[in-house]
């Protein structure tokens, strides 16, 4: 049974059909990657799935519940979390504060006006744990905007994980990283996701990485899904190769 399913999902910006009749079925198990050339509609699809944008038409079912059009916070509360292509951090706050805000979101006293935020012990413990998990303990008191690019990406993942989702959507977590760094990053993600038994949906531009870690891949072009299957099947697919050849260069320069 699929965990997340879209039916005839559409998003139109004026004349542009950014997401065009997408039917996607994502299983509970394994890592599902979404690839496609620039402007294929990958990020828009993520925006629709997480409530950042409202679909023009179609359905999104998560655990058998229609979530299309719900605001992001409702969707998060249902267990879907995400990262952004350009890290969206609380830049002026420290790494620890970033994670504390994120873990606090699950605390029943998160809206309290009166208790000291430093007194929410469970939240604080989770924060410490998360700091260790994403390997930023040493940088706990550094402001997010002072982190290196790689560490910012880690923190971005940390924020997405902090809300203890069942499903996480990562939008190019290795964007702007070198080969070596990317591999480490992917390894870290894999470990974190496995430890927590979270379903991962990944947008990734490095085909090598995608092929190595994905269990299933969907290929998006001009808003439409043109292929879906295992890494091997995708590698063989002619339509995919066609879609990629013209844009390979643009894709690499990001």
């Amino acid at each position, binding site marked *: 049974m699929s965990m997340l399913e879209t039916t005839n999902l559409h998003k139109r910006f004026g004349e542009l059909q950014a997401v065009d009749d997408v039917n996607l079925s994502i299983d509970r198990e394994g890592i599902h990657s979404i690839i496609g050339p620039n402007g294929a509609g990958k990020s828009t699809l993520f925006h629709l799935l*997480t409530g*950042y944008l409202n679909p023009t038409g179609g359905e999104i079912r998560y655990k058998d519940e229609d979530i299309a059009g719900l*605001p*992001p*916070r409702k969707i*998060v*509360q249902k267990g879907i*979390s*995400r990262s952004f292509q350009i890290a*969206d*951090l*609380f*830049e*002026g*706050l*420290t790494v620890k*504060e970033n994670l*504390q*805000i*994120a873990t*606090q*979101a*699950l*605390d029943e*006293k*998160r*809206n*309290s*006006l*009166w*208790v*000291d*935020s*430093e007194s*929410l012990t469970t939240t604080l413990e989770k924060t410490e744990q998360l700091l260790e998990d994403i390997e930023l303990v040493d940088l706990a008191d550094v*402001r997010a*905007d002072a982190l290196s690019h790689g560490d910012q990406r880690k923190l971005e993942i940390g*924020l997405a994980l*902090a*809300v203890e989702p069942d499903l996480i959507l990562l939008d190019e977590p290795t964007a702007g990283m070198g080969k070596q760094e990317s591999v480490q990053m992917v390894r870290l993600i894999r470990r974190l996701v496995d430890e927590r038994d979270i379903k991962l949906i990944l947008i990734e531009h490095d085909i090598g990485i995608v092929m190595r870690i994905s269990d299933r891949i969907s290929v998006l072009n001009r808003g439409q899904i043109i292929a879906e299957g295992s890494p091997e099947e995708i590698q063989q697919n002619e339509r995919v190769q066609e879609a990629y050849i013209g844009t390979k260069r643009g894709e690499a320069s990001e």
Partner: protein
Amino acid sequence: MSTNQLAFLILNGLALSMLYILIASGFAVIFGITDVLNFAHGVFYMLGAYLAFTVVDATGSFAIALILGPLVVAGLGIGIERLTLHYIYDRSPLYHVLITFGVLLIVTDVVEFVWGTGTKFFPTPDLLGGAVSIGPVIYPRYRLFTIAAGACIAFLTWALFRYSDFGLIVRGGAQDKQTVRLMGVNISRYYTLIFGLGTFLAAIAGALAAPFLSVNPAMGDDALIIAFVVVAIGGLGSFGGSIVAGVIVGFIQTITNTFASEISGFVLYLLLFGVLILKPEGILGAYEIREQAAKLSYDRTIDPLNLTDRRVLVVLGLLLLIPLAFEGFSLSQYGMGLIALMFVWGILALSLDTVTGYTGLISFGHAAFYGIGSYAVALLTVHFTSSFVLGLAAAVTVAAVVAWLVGAVSARLSGLYFAVVTFAVGQMLYQLALSWSGFTGGSNGLAIDNVTLLGALDLSNTFVFYYLALSLLVLCYYLVKRIMDSPFGLQLKAIRESERRAKFLGYDTNKAKRRVFAISGAVGGVAGALFTTRQTFTSPDTLYWIVSGDALFAVILGGVGTLYGPIIGGAVLLGLDQALTIYFDYWRLILGAVLIFIVLFAPRGLVSFYYIFEDRLGDDDPAGGTANPETVAPRDEEEAVQE
């Protein structure tokens, strides 16, 4: 309605529409391209009118005046942009707003200095004097000329943006700075030109308006409000929207003036408010909030001080002792009262800091809560009871409720829209207080009897009031500080840093904004209540937008986002204001210069001087342990010492 009336209605509506379009277009151009809400727009408009007046006086030619005046003003605008805004485009719009507010203060005084304060008679140019008959009516020639001139200028400006390379580049730059930069274009040079163009349009509007409106130092205020309203209704950042809105507003205003003049003062605000509720992005708003354009970020983290901090205790101790130590010696009632009013301004600035400094929402309407608090006490005292406790309760409740509503209406707006809505609310209440004279006393204000505390203490006694204001200041600070340390407070910081991320963590950010607005409103209400108690008087001026501007000034002056900084800022600003009015006739000029200086060179205000000083000391001893403990103890250590 007779044809006669209809003809007048159409012509009057057209003339007013064109005037509004002229006034708004410069404002719209600058905002649309650079994201700067130019509060100095009104004074450039005024300057245009005065320069035209002078040129006409010297040369006798209106045509020369119409060209020369605006050119000079545009040059001035370019100079100002080059010296100030140019360096801070990447900063929060809060700073842009304040820079232009500073320019407003300076230019106002310069105009009063050069041309005096009286209304100048600007004769209608001979060629355009008199009236001609158009169909059934006789209509002034000059008005017909303005209709034509307004249409021409609006068209030329539109064509410039639509068809020239210049227009292409700046429109591109407004969409995506990076790309334009990659194409090898230095977009900031274009920003300078845009600012010049915007001020040129403001000045030409002023020069054209001069013969049919009079020339006086208050004219800038009106123009600013009109520009604000028209641009917000049309859609921030849409030049076409401003034109459509100018026509709509002009005609609706004319119709109201003709058939329901009692409410003509509200029309602008009602329209604005309605549009913003129904279609927050404005009639033709294609404007998407540009991420960094809305964000308030700090280079340096400065945490609020605890009340138990030794430095705070020393200051509080001194403040407690001042009246006692100097009683009967040299501190007059007046001086003590002045310090007490500083506390009041501290509370107001503190209230604004929760919304602006902590949550990153630029409120340009905090006068609303101050005024509500002020009127609550006044009305209660006039009609029911002179009890301060009840007055305060009423002030806090009403201000909190209104603030909550403002928060509810504007929560889904971000960035500069927020500033616009809060501005509109404040001005609407001001207009209401002015017009509803049966209830509020109108422009005469309300004088009240002395307010008493717990039935026994007369609060007209400066001594008693001093301690009351001080204790309320401390109480407010304690409460706000405590709230800001709570999980809710952390949420607010999260919203300031990235509202989108906060939403994607599952926070209801709109709810948080409503709540923080209510809290801020309540605290602002306290300030207003104290003010009326002290003055035993209130008037619509407590609701005027200049009060909101001053409050923002105070917040920045002290140190935005630090809670205690704004208190210092409020106190210093009031003290400065009082002191400067004694020394100088042109004190606004000095205040404006101080504001611009702070924004450019010390964006975290007075408190940052302390930290800069601390850094200097800290260089010798990074741990900060052995240096002067008074100055270098970090917060955590300080707390440890206390325990």
